[in-house]
């Protein structure tokens, strides 16, 4: 068995010295097997419940050892080995006998402090899983039916020389494209709202210091978010339905809808606006 590195030995010697009230050098010597162990209270004996078991192992091991005399002694079984570390062989003892020690005793304490307030809880199975499963099936069903009825658009092959008029971004960016048509992009452009908006969104929990989650206490926050929602919805709808060639304003009921994502699901006569 390999020698324990010096720094580890020293660390355990310090712990031992502190526990037994002896000097570090003495403890070091004992660990190296150069001096008889102090008969004083062992750390294991003073330790609470869980460690008591390993203390038993530590004392039992030398007794069992003579049977394995001559061979490299077997150090406990794996479960015991986790709590009991073999230390350097006892030089003075009979051949094959090793002393075993507890390196450190760590008091059991929760890593996370949880406040245990009684809460009204139900089993995840079946109560939550049933709801989840049902909504998952419903969405799959709707998606399959939609995909049978509605063909995804595929226009002519990409052609760098034929710019369609109008050219529109995907719908989730159309609100931004719409903004772009009101403001000078360099000044109040899209990127500033995007970047500021993105960082701004991340900052919401740190800016909104109001601890309540009751709607009646959060009128301003709710107003602002609703304003944002409505604003994006209106801008997106204008972008999708009310913008025609040159991104100019059109009425869909007069000129048709210029939105190719919808190409195959708008009634004939509306969708051929271009």
């Amino acid at each position, binding site marked *: 068995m390999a020698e324990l590195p010096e720094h580890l030995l020293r660390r355990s010697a310090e712990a031992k010295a502190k526990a037994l009230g002896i000097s570090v050098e003495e403890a070091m010597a004992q660990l190296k097997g150069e001096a008889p162990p102090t008969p004083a209270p062992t750390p294991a004996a003073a330790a609470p419940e869980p460690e008591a078991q390993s203390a038993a192992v530590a004392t039992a091991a030398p007794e069992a050892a003579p049977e394995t005399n001559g061979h490299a002694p077997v150090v406990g079984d794996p479960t015991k080995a986790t709590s009991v570390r073999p230390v350097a062989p006892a030089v003075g003892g009979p051949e094959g006998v090793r002393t075993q020690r507890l390196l450190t005793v760590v008091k059991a304490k929760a890593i996370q402090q949880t406040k245990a307030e009684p*809460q*009204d*809880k*139900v*089993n*995840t*199975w079946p*109560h*939550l*899983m049933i*709801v*989840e499963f049902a*909504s*998952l099936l419903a*969405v*799959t069903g709707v*998606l*399959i039916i939609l*995909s*049978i009825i*509605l*063909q*995804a658009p*595929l*226009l*002519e*092959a*990409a*052609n*760098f020389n034929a710019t*369609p008029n109008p*050219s*529109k*971004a*995907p*719908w*989730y*960016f159309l609100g*931004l494209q719409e903004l*772009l048509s009101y403001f000078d*992009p*360099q000044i109040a452009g*899209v*990127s*500033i709202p*995007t*970047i500021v908006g*993105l960082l701004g*969104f*991340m900052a*919401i*929990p*740190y800016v*909104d210091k109001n*601890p309540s*989650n009751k*709607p009646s206490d*959060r009128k301003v926050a709710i107003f602002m978010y609703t304003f944002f*929602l409505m604003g994006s919805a209106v801008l997106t709808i204008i972008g999708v339905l009310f913008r025609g060639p040159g991104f100019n304003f059109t009425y869909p009921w007069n000129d048709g809808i210029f939105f190719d*994502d919808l190409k195959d699901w708008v009634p004939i006569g509306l969708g051929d606006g271009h």
Partner: protein
Amino acid sequence: MVQKLLDRVKELPSALHGSKVVDSILRPGSPMKAGYSDSPRNRSYVIMNNVLYHLHPVKVKRHGVRLSYTLCLGGLSFFLFILLTITGIFLMFYYAPTAEAAYQDIQELSTSVAFGSLVRNMHRWGAHFMVLTVFLHMSRVFYHGAYKAPREFNWVVGVVLLLLTLLLSFTGYLLPWDQLALWAVTVGTNMASFVPVFGSQVQFTLLGAVAVSADTLLRWYVLHVLFLPFIIVIFMAIHFWRVRKDGGISGPL
């Protein structure tokens, strides 16, 4: 003879049920295991002795189970992501990200591959759905004030997830290489050029060129099928883990 065979087939389910092989697959407490009975202890085991334990605790707050609280929007966003991964892998079998092949591959997929059209449609509409459910999930969280302590950081992770969802959708938009794809992406990436100071550099990095080109197609394909899914899965893992560690679902109001 035939009768005997039929009898064998009829016995098969009960023979399988409780056989050593099936037993080795199902962990104790599985409702599919022989002898499962409905008891509070077994209800805990269904989750605890199962890979599901990575996603769900054994018990959840009563109000969190009501469909009307979360509307299942976060769960559905995740489920749509799984559906998109499955349909996307199918599409990859038939698609090459080159300017010569891409458009034709999509065309042939719709006409000469069994279920090709259905799977492509599911992938496309599913992607639109996912953008929608993620957005609605964010709104649900906002209206519940569910971003407040100790959930502040999970909201930040959520904003990253929203951004990644949009990027996944946008990179996929280019892949059919038709007029819609080409020009929607041109318009979209032109917006990036308005980024102050670094506008043209940002645009160049996105496109791999000064304008949308065959290089862009390859670049966005790799982002779409490999890089972005990889990143979003990591962030989802953090997101779900934090939901648990922040004390489960928020509320009740």
